[in-house]
């Protein structure tokens, strides 16, 4: 997966808004020699179709392959078809909570499956910690923050 770190860092360095300051803490260590290609697609689970499209474009631009799901049921079915390398999970899904979906995905795809939680829930930090998410982002988030979180979750860069 060459290029991802380059582009991300190159860009954030030139940013002038508040994002770069926050990015500095979360910025991954630049070491793309050690990066390994993700073994599967990123699965986006969110009931908002516009949001799914936005994240899909974002990640495809980063050279990642992407699958999407609007509900927990769809997510589980998609994951069966294309075992994901990472899941971006909205906590407030119809019918089944994000927690329940995370639990089922992990029971099938292993406890190590990295999950990045996105939500507008006020208790997102607590909920994310409890379900063992690797990262969490409050809606609305900066797309650069999402890219950093995914990169860290996938390649363990710190």
């Amino acid at each position, binding site marked *: 997966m060459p290029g991802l770190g380059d582009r991300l860092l190159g860009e954030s360095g030139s940013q002038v808004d508040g994002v770069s300051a926050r990015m500095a803490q979360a910025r991954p260590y630049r070491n793309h020699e050690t990066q390994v290609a993700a073994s599967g697609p990123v699965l986006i689970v969110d009931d908002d179709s516009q949001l799914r499209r936005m994240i899909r474009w974002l990640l495809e*631009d980063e050279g990642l392959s992407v699958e999407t799901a609007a509900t927990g*049921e769809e997510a589980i079915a998609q994951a069966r078809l294309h075992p994901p390398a990472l899941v971006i999970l909205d906590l407030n899904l119809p019918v089944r909570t994000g927690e329940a979906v995370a639990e089922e995905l992990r029971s099938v795809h292993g406890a190590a499956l990295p999950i990045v939680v996105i939500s507008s829930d006020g208790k997102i930090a607590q909920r994310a910690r409890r379900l063992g998410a690797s990262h969490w982002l409050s809606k609305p*988030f900066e797309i650069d923050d999402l890219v950093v979180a995914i990169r860290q979750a996938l390649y363990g860069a710190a």
Partner: protein
Amino acid sequence: MKRSKLDPLGQAEYGILATAGGDPVSLPQPEHNPPDVSNAATLPMLGHEELAERARRVEDSFDQLHAILDGVADGITAQGPSGQVIYANTAAARLIGYASAEDLQRTPPSELLRAFELFDEAGNPFPVDQLPSRLALTGMHPPETLIRFREVATGEERWLLVKSAPVKDEHGRVRLAINIFRDITAQRRDEEAQRFLAEATGLLASSLDYQTTLEQVARLAVPKISDWCVVDVVDDSGEARRLALAHVDPAKVAVARKLQEIYPPDSDESQGVTKVLKTGRPEMIPEISDELLTRAAKDEHHLQLLRQVGMKSAMVVPMVARSRILGAISFVSAESGRRFDFNDLELAQHLGRRAALAVDNARLYGEAQEALHLRNELFSGISHDLKNPLTGIKGMAQLLMRQVRRMETPDRDRLVEGLESIDSIASRMSAQINELLDVARLQMGQPLELESRPVEIVKLVREIVSEHQKSTEAHNIRLVTSVPRLVGDWDEVRLARVISNLLSNAVKYSPSGGDVLVEVSREENESGSWALVSVRDWGLGIPRDELSKVFLGFRRGRNVTGIQGTGIGLASARQIVELHGGRIAVSSMEGNGSTFTVWLPVGPRVSSQAEASPTLPEAA
């Protein structure tokens, strides 16, 4: 020997009313005997006429003395050295429980004492040899003493202030003891009542948990005010509910509960709690006779239980606050033999008003808390609902900025598509905000002004269906129309919101996907011409007992967890439809989906909503 019953109205505490006519009271011999006119011969100085005149005057003065003594509110007796009553005025006879002074005088002192139990102020037995009259007969001048007399036969109690003094002859021997009794039962009760009221008020003000405080008040009322105290409250649905039933003896409570269980009070009763709850006016039965019980009893067993409770006197007062009847408090006297009077009723009414205030306050507080809670839920729902599209706008804008910065020649198609996406999300947000403003307006009781103009509903529904189909891959939204075009005079934006709301609900509440059927048709009936839009899904459905509440604000089925939303959609949908002069209805089966149907008038609007309501099968 006939015992007088206490005046049930308590107006005769001092015996004033009982003295009219002057009973033939005997004064102690020999003073009592009028002068004998036959002795006229020994009084030679006086003529017959003068003698007769003097005798008349003496007789008159005795009559006057009787009248005076009988007119005294206090009871007055004179006892001879052996303790026998040789004079009693009417008030004394009545206070001690005799019909007349003669009855009292005929009763031996020992029997008189056996009829009563005596207690001091603290409730300890009062020793007979310490009675003021006994002490006076020994020549002492005892101080005024407060004694509680409890009549053994009836259980009736009186508080008497007793003052006794000896009358001695020229040799210093005690000839008489003169006793004066003042009945202060009413004052004592009044003091007790005020204390009770103060205590009860304190209890009622101590907590907003009115159920507990009313139970405490009922327990406080027995036995100070009555032997029984029962509190019934009317709940939100208008049903009366027994909140408290108190008696000093738990065994009696069990009997009363059994009584109520076997013979629940009729709703059409012409008296008692049911009547008070209906009229809001107090009821009092000063004397409950066995005949009354027999009449009230539904059968022999009922009568037996009623007798077991042993009701003697009863009063029921309403709990009224802000012109609403919130409940009733019943007081029943039984083994104490107490007869309620108007003073008691007044006290009970005071208590009823205070209890009502406490209940009202507690309920208002509960409602305010509930409203606050719902508002907080709404706020968090709104912020959630607005943050989602905001994420899309922000993300898409950042994404496009990135591309423009990065590339020499940005991908024009993607740029247009991204900007369109931002525009469409922003429109959605704007619609959401308008909807919230509508809801806020409706909740504040401000009417919405419809912006009606001709709308072709088949096209409108088709657009909404297509939009919703884009947002779901798991559902197949089918549109069936029985008419090619259907034009009405409606508010297009708000109507679109209603239909969109129904569709997103159908999608949202059939999480496993599947068919959603949307039908548009026209219906003609006696009430006019109607456009029908129905949305059917085969999802979770709505539990039967919640079906009637779906159009109320802030409701979501209890079989729904994890589905976001504020629950305000259907309430405002109904209001919008009704503003159009139409109607919305739902039918559903839990586990087998729901059908929402909207009727909208086609053609000129009928002014009144009631007249415009289409005839349709009763929903829910």
